[in-house]
């Protein structure tokens, strides 16, 4: 079963990271899910695939009452991001899913009705959670053609979806990046292959360089914090992307 760990807490404003499932079958990619709660309201970020729903749901229950989750944020349309939607809808049919307008007609194949989806326009939008407002930051073509990150200006945390992801070897279970040089080796091939556009990459790097970020939280692998955030952005900026390793 996964575990839910608090990565940020300031009064009733919290970020939980739901990570590392020792029981996950080897054929499924490991994913991180995040919950942002403010007072009595909460948003679940990239809730994961239907195969890992039991693990995510149980881990979440141990730390938070999931009846308070009113919204889901899906960075893009992939099955490891949002195919558990039908289960979340089963649990709470009133839950709303924020996703790029591009996918609003595709993702209902995983579940939900016409009332479930709140399309995010290309330039992004604010998503209210309790008294706070989180910002959907455009990250199109990184890797999906309709792709968003989510920024919490109060907590200074950027949920970066697949950007910053690393496919870590078994046993490498640390929550945070402790040794950047050793870690980034496991991120390189993924970014070269999955991030398809050099221009989109440059735009993203310029966009997030202006944000005040203490933690950069990807959907796979460890979290970058402190100086490692800037280091990652610089590393990504100079990486040759959109290439198949021959």
């Amino acid at each position, binding site marked *: 079963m996964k575990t839910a760990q608090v990565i940020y807490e300031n009064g009733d404003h919290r970020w939980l990271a739901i990570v590392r499932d020792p029981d996950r079958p080897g054929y499924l990619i490991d994913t991180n899910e995040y919950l942002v709660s403010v007072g009595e309201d909460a948003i679940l970020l990239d809730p994961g695939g239907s195969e890992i729903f039991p693990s995510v749901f149980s881990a979440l*229950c141990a730390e938070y009452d999931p009846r308070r989750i009113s919204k889901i944020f899906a960075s893009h349309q992939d099955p490891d991001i949002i195919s558990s939607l039908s289960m979340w809808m089963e*649990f709470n049919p009133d839950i709303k899913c924020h996703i790029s307008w591009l996918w609003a007609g595709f993702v209902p194949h995983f579940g939900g009705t016409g009332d479930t989806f709140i399309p995010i326009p290309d330039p992004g939008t604010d998503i209210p959670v309790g008294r706070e407002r989180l910002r959907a930051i455009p990250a199109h073509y990184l890797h999906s053609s309709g792709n968003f990150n989510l920024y919490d200006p109060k907590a200074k945390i950027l949920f970066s979806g697949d950007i910053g992801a690393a496919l870590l070897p078994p046993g490498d279970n640390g929550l945070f990046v402790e040794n950047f040089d050793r870690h980034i080796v496991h991120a390189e091939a993924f970014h070269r292959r999955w991030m398809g556009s050099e221009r989109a990459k440059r735009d993203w790097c310029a966009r997030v360089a202006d944000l005040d970020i203490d933690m950069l939280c990807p959907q796979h692998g460890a979290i970058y914090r402190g100086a490692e955030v800037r280091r990652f952005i610089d590393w990504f900026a100079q990486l040759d992307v959109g290439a198949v390793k021959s």
Partner: protein
Amino acid sequence: MTQAAGTGGELRRIVRINEEIKSVVATAFKINLMAMNAIFLAKRAGQAALGFSVLSNELRRFATDLQQQMEVLRQMTHGSVASVTALVKTERLNRVVDRMRSELSGQARAMIERYLRNRQTTSFVLHQEAIATQNRRLSQTIADTAQLVELGSVLARSAKIEAAYGGSFSAALMQVSSDFEHTIAEIHRSLEQLSRHHD
């Protein structure tokens, strides 16, 4: 699982059970700390509080056992979520196949009907049986926990009696044992809620 409750209701029920588990775990943690303080107090009271000291140690063990028992319950609810998830997937598939059947005729329809009959007598029923078995185990574990908590109540009452022999520390020991009694009563209430959510 009753048909009326549905799988969503089943998940919400599991959440309510988990909320009570969290509440009991927090209270068990409190008892553990209280018992530690009680052991120190009994040490200071010396010979007059020997019995009280033994009971405080037992109450500490009780708190640890209770925390372990709650972990067992939590693992059980995880198993229940997995079974409910499997049931939802089967239900969805059955609905799709059912729609196919209504749109087909002749041999194709007969084939789908055979498939449906087979599925309904295998995976769907198996998932329902798995949930029923897990619910029975959960009931048994809640009943076992209720017995454990009863033991905690007996220990707290005995501590109250021992406090009377605590000489000059009697009033302080009495206060501590009353606190034990009230805190264990909180657990009783949580367990009653747990049983109600489970039924």
